[in-house]
């Protein structure tokens, strides 16, 4: 394992010994991870390696079986509902499928988070509409999509709207769940650029999970690999091509032969 770059004394996000099982299947098996303020960590790994479960634990959507998660030294694990909600309101999440609300027009989706951020004066619907148009512009969408329903948009446009919603409340931490999955390479690159721009503009700390190596190389300031519920490698994007780690090598070069065996159920 390669040592990560030097970190400040208090990490933005600190995960220690995180464990989570579903039935007999251990999904997370002792994850230790520290993410510094302003860092963009990309976690790579195959399907079923526990990436999504890790993100859901970070958002307290799932309760881990053991270990701890702290945001700026405030414990997320074991906290009451109000504390969890307060910590969550400092995060923005881009879901894999966008998870836009079908029953609301695009602008209401984007404005949804704005009023929820504690300490901000409530706004009326007209002001919310104007703010939503502004946020849509930052992800390259015009005012003409504001009144459309999410189902009227293409997959790439839905991802942009979902990104606008995730950044609308100006969160300190941004989480991205497979942001480029299902998009063609040009749209994927556009989304990568928007992610980089949003993270830099907000000065946010970002954690992304993906198995798209082009995306990982582009948006990461640090990469970690998850395999069978453990972090098996952690280092800078420049180091991934000659890491000397056979698991990472196989994954990065997309080879079917190697220590990682595809789990295919016998017919």
């Amino acid at each position: 394992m390669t040592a990560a770059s030097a970190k400040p004394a208090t990490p933005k996000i600190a995960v220690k010994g995180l464990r989570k099982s579903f039935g007999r299947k251990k999904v997370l098996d002792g994850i230790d991870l520290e993410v510094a303020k302003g860092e963009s960590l990309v976690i790579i790994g195959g399907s079923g390696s526990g990436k999504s479960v890790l993100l859901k634990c970070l958002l307290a959507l799932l309760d881990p079986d053991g270990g701890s998660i702290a945001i700026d030294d405030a414990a997320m694990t074991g906290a009451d509902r109000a504390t969890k909600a307060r910590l969550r309101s400092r995060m923005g999440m881009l879901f894999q499928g966008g998870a836009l609300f079908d029953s609301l027009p695009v602008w209401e989706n984007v404005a949804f988070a704005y009023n929820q951020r504690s300490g901000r004066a409530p706004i009326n619907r007209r002001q919310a509409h104007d703010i939503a148009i502004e946020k849509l512009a930052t992800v390259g969408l015009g005012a003409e999509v504001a009144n459309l329903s999410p189902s009227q948009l293409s997959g790439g446009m839905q991802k942009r709207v979902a990104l606008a919603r995730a950044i609308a409340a100006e969160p300190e931490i941004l989480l991205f769940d497979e942001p480029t999955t299902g998009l063609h390479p040009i749209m994927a690159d556009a989304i990568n650029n928007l992610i980089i721009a949003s993270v830099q503009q907000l000065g946010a700390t970002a954690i992304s999970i993906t198995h798209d190596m082009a995306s990982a190389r582009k948006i990461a300031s640090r990469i970690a690999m998850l395999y069978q519920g453990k972090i098996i490698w952690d280092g800078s994007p420049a180091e991934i091509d000659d890491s000397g780690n056979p698991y990472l090598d196989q994954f990065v070069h997309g080879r079917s032969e190697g220590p990682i065996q595809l789990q295919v159920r016998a017919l």
Partner: protein
Amino acid sequence: MPPLGIAGRMIDFLATIGRRVLDILAIAGRLTIFIARALSHCVRPPFYFRNIGRQFWTIGYNSLPVVGLTAIFTGAVLALQGYVGFSRFAAPTAIPAVVAVSVTRELGPVLASLMVAGRVGAAIAAEIGTMRVTEQIDALDTLATNPMKYLVVPRVLAGLLMMPLLVIVADVIGVMGGFVVSSFILEFNESAYLINSINALHTMDIVSGLVKAAVFGLIVTLLGCFNGYGSRGGAEGVGTATTNAVVYASVLILFFDYFLTELFLTR
């Protein structure tokens, strides 16, 4: 595997029954916790008044055609069947009273609720189930919005308050269905029919029907929400949730109908 002896088969059989019983107990436990949470959120702010208004419209107003059609044919058939039965005892004049009491105490609330279970219960389970499998419910959590308050409370309040109003409409239309058949086909005197209908009714007939309607409205919406909220596994999971919502609600409506009828029998 060696063939099982009689004792082995017996243990297998008992284990199957035991697993089924445990499954049912687990569902009953989850349902009880869900109902307690939903009802407690109904009386605690914040309230999403736009959502509540929208559900009052969807569950109440939009159910009027199906409830009205059910009621008019129920009243009409009751008058015809009553004529066949009471003519044998030379007592066809009992028809107005029988139609009015049957519709207000029993058939109005039960048939309207069963129709609403099919229309509204299924729609609730499908909508919330789709939101669950497309991560929209997780997205609500990350946007500092409690899904129970945002999705469940408006539907449950609409069921509780709109169902009695629908049943008032069903009562009037049901009695009028009997009136139309009696006056135009059975050649009853119109004014005498209406006076007999009104004189036959006691306050408790109407009150007991409305109490039933409120309970059935709760059953339909709570089971729709419960099944949708807990759905798993994509389109198939949503389909199962929808079916379960309608079947469980229909069975529970008939179950509670008996006990509520017994409760009001002597009043």
